[in-house]
């Protein structure tokens, strides 16, 4: 009898559609939970506002102050 080479894998038994759906739903739920944890942490600890106030706006303000504008009345 021919031995299976180590590199050859046994064909996985076909999964029932219910199991496939459950797997997808499980992954979606896991993704949803992860997204919730990340966004809720940002929300609760006000991280986006801290980033904007302490990092992004000072950087932008420096840029705006260095801008050359066409400043005139008419």
């Amino acid at each position: 009898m021919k031995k299976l080479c180590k590199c050859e894998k046994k064909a996985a038994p076909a999964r029932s559609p219910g199991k496939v759906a459950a797997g997808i739903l499980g992954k979606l739920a896991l993704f949803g939970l992860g997204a919730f944890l990340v966004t809720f942490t940002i929300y609760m600890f006000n991280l986006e506002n801290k980033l904007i106030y302490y990092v992004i706006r000072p950087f932008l303000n420096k840029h705006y102050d260095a801008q050359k504008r066409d400043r005139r009345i008419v």
Partner: protein
Amino acid sequence: MKNPITAFIDRKLQKFDPLWQSEHGTGGLRSRYYDKTGIAKYREWRGVHDTMLDYASWLKNLASMGVMVASAPLPVLKGIWEYRWMGSYLGTFAFIDRLFEGYRGPELKIAHMNMHAIVQSLTKKIALVLSNDRRLGGGPLTDNMVPMDEVLPPLFMCGFPNLIPIPLQTLPEFIICDIDQQLQPFYIDVAESFGLAADVCSRCSAETGVAFNDDFPLIGRAMLSTNMPCNASEATSMFQRRRVGLPDFPVTLAMIHNEPGAHPYSTQMLRDAIAFIEKEYGEKYDWDALFARAKQMNEQNTIELEKWDIFKTKYSALSGIAETLYRLYSWASVNGQEDYFTKNDRKVIKIMRRCYEKRHEPFGGRTRHRAFLWGPSAVYYTDFPTWTQNCWGITIVLNMDSTMGHNMIDTEDPEQAIKDLAEFSEKGVMRHHAVGGWDNVNAVWDWAKSFNCDMVLMNDNVACKGMNGVHAMMEEQARDLGFHFIFIEHDLEDCRTISRRDMRNNVNSYMSVVLGEEPLDPTLVDFDDSEAW
């Protein structure tokens, strides 16, 4: 009925709720802020249900901003890089947090529904304007846009379905001052650096500064300016039309419009404005297109009048800034053009009816005074009504700006429709009350009485020459009629002259010295937010 699990969690975590803290002397709404900056260490814990509602609303607003960037990634990025005022829009999340501090239950739900209507509309408008701004490369709709003065209600322009009216000053000057108090002083300084007087209305000064600094988006083929009878307003209209350099039609509506003779003049003015747009843009006015949008505006105004009936009771789930800001934006900027606002109004009135039927008292029944807010409010302190509620239990029942044009527009006869539009437009933002003659200013007492208010908060724009003239008369009448009356001094868009803290102290002094009351939340009485957006 409350879910037993969330009720259990709420009981366990209630010590983190700032309203509970203020009642138990362990803190309050101001405890979670870093000094001066207005940046909170963490967001407000409002109990499971309301915190999740606030979080979901935050996500919805975030999604709207994501859609804005995704719909026009390059123009939006270019816009942030090009325009100082675009950078200020990054403060929107902190702005919304400030507005609805201390809100719970249906008050919070309605407030977020109204706010999201504004966010979804404003983000679309920003993407649209930047995508078609000639300065950033232009777009397919650049020539179809009609820049117009923001105090001119754009409803009559709906008769041009192929054109897009854009209130020119709203994005770089007005709305953004609500979000960031630090922005307009820059533009005011630009205007004054050219030798312009420093004692004029700061709103006009800021608009002028935006024009001088070349910070208006470049859109359209011709513009509609308008009149407001004060020296600064006339000046800024002239400066803007010269600098923008497009063919211009000044839509000078009648100011003293209570007299019957004024309406034919304003009606003819609208006809002339329509003729000007037809000529400049090569478009024919379509009355059916106008009627379609006027029906939306009529429905919104019908709902608004029903809201007013509920405002007169103590069972209104909508009050304060959730009412004021929404009405201001939906009337002055949207003005019947977006179905979203009609749908939102239908949902909000349903909640308000339900709350009224259940005799729901907003803000946990902590309201002590019902106030009518009169006069143009400080744009740099939009959350002032939230503060008065949370600190002293003064609920702002209605704001002067919310009483703008609420007459119905005829939707069948063009002759009647244009007359109705003239009357509607005469009662525009500030036009009707602040500069529309003594009777309209003095109407505050009838409004306050009709809405069962015991207090009038009178916004006192220190640079408004017209309103300065009525100071003593208003005080005398308040005394005669028995209203609690507080002048709230402010400088409209310049937070350096009179700070938010100074404005709060006007109320603090009256409430503690004259009325001898104790604050609901002592952490809110005196604090420094001078470096906040």
